[in-house]
């Protein structure tokens, strides 16, 4: 049976499934689902510690946001451990991390964003106009619509789908709030000044220490 677990073909699928569960928050990926679809001949008592080991390795790699040197060192250490992984398995894990690192990192960043995000922005500028209700000639006005919403879990594309999971509509993004703002020229420039202060701050932050 150990031979089954060492086979590398289903490992890639397993890592994808574990990532979907651990990082993308995709519900419905149970241990039994993974076992039955990827390692059908392995009994659950053997599969359980195996997938736990792989999950632990994946989480360590993601948590430390390992670069490729760190990854190599980490995986080599895992191959030398008692009850660790084989070098073939290390190669599969390495390949997986290299192709999924960016997406997983993005997902982890999203998980740490609890405040609403800016989902969309549209605007127009209205020219001079006159209203019969007011003698004033309206000065040009910028009208901006901000779409603000919480970052719900995104539905990740199913390129990994060697595993079939029922589609869950609750993954759909939560309702957005639309905020409509009017700015005259003075206001626009005031905000612009503030934005340039932010930009300056960013440059200072990003400078190599």
């Amino acid at each position, binding site marked *: 049976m150990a031979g089954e677990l060492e086979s590398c073909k289903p490992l890639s699928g397993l890592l994808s499934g574990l990532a979907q569960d651990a990082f993308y928050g995709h519900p419905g990926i149970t241990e039994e689902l993974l076992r039955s679809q990827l390692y059908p001949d392995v009994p659950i008592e053997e599969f359980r510690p195996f997938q736990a080991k792989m999950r632990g390795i994946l989480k360590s790699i993601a*948590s430390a946001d390992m670069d490729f040197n760190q990854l190599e060192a980490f995986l080599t250490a895992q191959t030398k451990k008692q009850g660790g992984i084989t070098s073939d398995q290390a190669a599969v894990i390495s390949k997986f991390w290299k192709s999924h690192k960016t997406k997983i990192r993005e997902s982890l960043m999203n998980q*740490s964003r609890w405040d609403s*995000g800016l989902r969309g922005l549209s605007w127009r500028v209205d020219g001079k106009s006159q209203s019969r209700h007011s003698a004033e000639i309206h000065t040009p006005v*910028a009208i901006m619509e901000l779409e603000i919403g919480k970052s719900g879990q995104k539905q990740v594309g199913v390129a990994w789908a060697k595993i079939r999971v029922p589609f869950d509509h609750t993954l759909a993004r939560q309702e957005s709030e639309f905020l409509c*703002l009017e700015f005259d020229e003075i206001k626009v420039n005031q*905000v612009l000044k503030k934005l340039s202060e932010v930009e300056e701050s960013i440059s200072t*932050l990003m400078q190599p220490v």
Partner: protein
Amino acid sequence: QLIDFQWKLGMAVSSDSCRSLKYPYVAVMLKVADHSGQVKNKSFEMTIPQFQNFYRQFKEIAAIIETV
């Protein structure tokens, strides 16, 4: 109507899901008044690329509003 615009540049260093996050973000707090005069606070976050897009669009608005 926008009454006030406050901002904060933050760096998320670490979280319980990722120990090595290192992710900068811009948090914005807008104080807005609706037609009835009621004032509300609205806050949201932007990633750096989102902020830069926001800034670029604002500059475009400024350029246009000057010429109108």
